[in-house]
């Protein structure tokens, strides 16, 4: 029974040759998924919010609710 001599060298290189491109590709996919899944929708949400934002209206609503200490609701 004569078996073939096993590979003695280059084991890490062989593993890296296989795994590095995959690792690279998966990292890129993860980054792209985060960008288009999280950051782009978030930027859009903020843009949409501030497009129609009336600061004075919001301030008056908050004032009437009575949360400020420096300016009380207009009734008092």
């Amino acid at each position, binding site marked *: 029974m004569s078996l073939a001599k096993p590979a003695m060298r280059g084991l890490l290189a062989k593993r890296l040759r296989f795994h590095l491109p995959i690792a690279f590709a998966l990292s890129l996919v993860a980054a792209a998924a985060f960008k288009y899944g999280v950051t782009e929708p978030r930027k859009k949400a*903020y843009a949409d*919010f501030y497009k129609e934002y009336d600061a004075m209206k919001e301030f008056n609503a*908050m004032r009437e*609710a009575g*949360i400020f200490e420096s300016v009380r609701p207009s009734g008092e």
Partner: protein
Amino acid sequence: MLLSRRGLAAFSSSSVKMASHGHGDVTEQGDMSVPMYWDRLDTPLPDKPYQDTLSDADKSLKQKEKGPWNHLSKEEKLALYRMTFKESFAEMKKPTGEWKTVVGGIFFFIGFTGLVVLWQRYYVYPPHPRTLDDEWKAKQVKRMLDMRMNPVEGFSAKWDYEKGQWK
């Protein structure tokens, strides 16, 4: 059960043998000042062969072993192997099923801990602080909405201010 046997064997004086053999049988105490035999995955060639005293048939087989090995039949090769080694690697690596006991024990004790925690909830914990009352929590939510906390993507974004209800 496997665990109780191990537990008992640990107290006996053949603890070294038990630790190195794993699931092996505990035979008579060997003299540990001379080279010993043991089945271990990280010692593929133990310090001495398994069988010390060979019968005459075994001895003649050992003589035959000194010649060319093509002359040995398959049974003779196996007999020679078993003379030198007690268990093959496959036999050594055989799964024991011990994990089932371990996992079962884990679940059991987690369950027991759950019961202890439950008892604590009723007999040990002091009464709630008032900030955890439903009325207080409702007033808290109203204040958070009035302050417009996280109005873009978070808390207040989910409240419909015109209709006065959750979106």
